[in-house]
């Protein structure tokens, strides 16, 4: 993509994101979200982030599922999930995940 195209795309995403961040702050507190929309939105981060995470853990760049190439990543993912649940700490999760990735890459190589 050209630099100009990328800047235009960033500007559109930035403007849309700002509009969402500003929406209710601008409209004051009189307008309340209907209950169903708040409910729908409450699932957005979890559903979207899981959809981002899982393919990265189990799919190789060529799309193959749990191939030898992705075994270390999948193991690191499991370790990171356990670390996240136990520690509730981002740094601990990253360190355990990457350490597991190194170990399993070395062992499985």
């Amino acid at each position, binding site marked *: 993509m050209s630099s100009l195209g990328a800047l235009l795309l960033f500007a559109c995403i930035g403007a849309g994101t700002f509009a969402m961040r500003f929406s209710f702050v601008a409209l004051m507190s009189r307008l309340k979200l209907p209950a169903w929309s708040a409910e729908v939105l409450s699932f957005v981060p*979890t559903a979207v982030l*899981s959809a981002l995470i899982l393919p990265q853990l189990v799919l190789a760049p060529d799309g193959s599922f749990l191939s030898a190439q992705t075994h270390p990543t999948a193991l690191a993912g499991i370790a990171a999930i356990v670390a996240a649940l136990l520690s509730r700490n981002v740094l601990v999760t990253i360190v355990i995940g990457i350490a597991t990735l190194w170990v399993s890459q070395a062992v499985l190589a």
Partner: protein
Amino acid sequence: MGFTGGVGVTTDERNELIMGMRDCAALLPGTVPFGLALGTVAAQSGLPALVSHSSSYVIFAGSAQLITLSMMNLESLAPPMLILITALVLNLRHVLYSASLAPHLKHLGWRWKVLLSYLTTDETYAVSIQRLQAGNTPRIAHWHFLGANLLLWASWQTSTLLGLFISGAIPASWGLGFAVPATFIAIVFPALKDKPMMAAALVGGVIAVLCAGLPFKSGILVAAAAGIAAGMLTKHLVTNTTA
């Protein structure tokens, strides 16, 4: 609240600002590696450094920048309209944050509202909404939010820029790219407090894997919609059976 010459800041306001920065500082061990990793992804987009880094202040939303820049990867460039829709769907949660912040910011002027809205992130919302809702310092608690936001903004600009320039020096075998899914894992999994959330995560993740072959990464949108639907269905099935 005496006359302070227009730009003056009272001691209470300054204390509130510093407290916000201190609360935000506790989160930097997670956001700085995320920023470094994002800088690495930005370097792979094939764009000039200053163009890809502009996403850090034009968009200023880590997960949306991540999906945007990885969808712009030279090998598999997705259509811009799809990138736009995906990033905005990912950021829809900001409407919720805005609704929750609005009552606490309504006494402020437009400049405050614009600035704080631009700066809102998952992390700073999470640390400051507690302060805002506590109501101990209702007229000045927005200074806490400002302090948290300013520190996160500055550290985000620094870490993404640093990541962009050192990315060539870090071998891929170090696996620092794993910091990104690991950060998301650290955000998602501790938040799986009930069955509806677990259903949303499980269905969203599994459908994303199944739909990974769909053209232009549109599987993420399908998966997100399926995950949200699964969460809503589970919530109402659980409510109906227990009520």
